[in-house]
């Protein structure tokens, strides 16, 4: 091996059993756990501490969020099927499933767009209450992560798929890595949905 090539980029290191990218993405996800932890910490503190917190959740559309939850869960399945297609060396199926994953992500964003604009139309903004502040910030940051995932997945779907020819193993690893990020984004939503949309209001109506 030439001294300049970086080892374990693709093949795993024997003692850790992992390649570099796998470790890298899990480390990044650890930092994301801490990020969303802080956001939820804000939710908890404001919910417990602010008498004016509660009623905003009654303004949210449960049906839209329910659909979005199913959209993201399905996109997680198509994502993992995209990786499985890579493992089966089926480029056609990979393209199908990856394309579906990106499309479902887009579907999520469209529904979010309608949710947000409906709020603004009714004069409800982040400044309206602490609940709305945390709602827009939490779902907004989550949506930013969905968008980032869509961009990376979109890259692997189209231009990045060239690596299929030159280095199939590394390409498959990259798809798996991107999948880990995507599943994490789904996982966050799994908690966001009940917390923001379904929990009862903390204080009775005045």
């Amino acid at each position, binding site marked *: 091996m030439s001294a300049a090539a970086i080892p374990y980029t693709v093949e795993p290191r024997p003692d850790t059993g992992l390649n570099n990218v796998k470790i890298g993405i899990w480390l990044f996800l650890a930092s994301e756990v801490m990020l969303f932890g802080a956001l939820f*910490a804000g939710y908890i*503190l404001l919910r*417990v501490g602010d008498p004016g917190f509660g009623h905003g959740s009654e303004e949210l559309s449960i049906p839209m969020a329910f659909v979005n939850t199913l959209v993201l*869960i399905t996109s997680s399945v198509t994502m*993992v099927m995209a990786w499985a297609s890579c493992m089966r060396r089926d480029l056609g199926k990979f393209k199908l499933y990856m394309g579906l994953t990106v499309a479902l992500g887009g579907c999520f964003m469209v529904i979010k767009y309608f949710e947000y604009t409906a709020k603004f139309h009714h004069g409800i903004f982040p400044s309206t209450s602490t609940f709305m502040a945390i709602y827009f910030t939490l779902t907004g940051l989550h949506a930013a992560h969905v968008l980032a995932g869509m961009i990376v997945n979109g890259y692997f779907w189209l231009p990045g798929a060239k690596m299929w020819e030159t280095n199939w193993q590394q390409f498959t690893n990259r798809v798996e890595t991107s999948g880990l990020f995507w599943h994490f984004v*789904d996982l966050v939503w*799994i*908690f966001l949905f009940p917390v923001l949309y*379904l*929990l009862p209001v903390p204080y009775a109506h005045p």
Partner: protein
Amino acid sequence: MSDAHAHAHEIDVDHHVRIYMRVFAALAVLTVITVAVAYLHLTTAAAVALALFIATIKGSLVACYFMHLISEKKLIYVVMVVTVLFFFFELLIPTISESINIHAG
């Protein structure tokens, strides 16, 4: 990569795909249950506990099977366990400290 190695992967993959489909079904059902129990008019404490419990199950399924955490290497576990520890600290200490101070409420 030798054909035998590739073939071994294919067998693995079929098994995984069956699991993915079962997990998908479970997640869909649990999502419906999540919404249904929200209409049960439980006390706040019970509602929060139940919602988080179901979400934890769903999240664990995604982590363990979609993210392959159930068969991951020890190093990843160690990193994530330490992270989760700090996560709970960060999540709860601010509110606890505000709730038990003399001006609480």
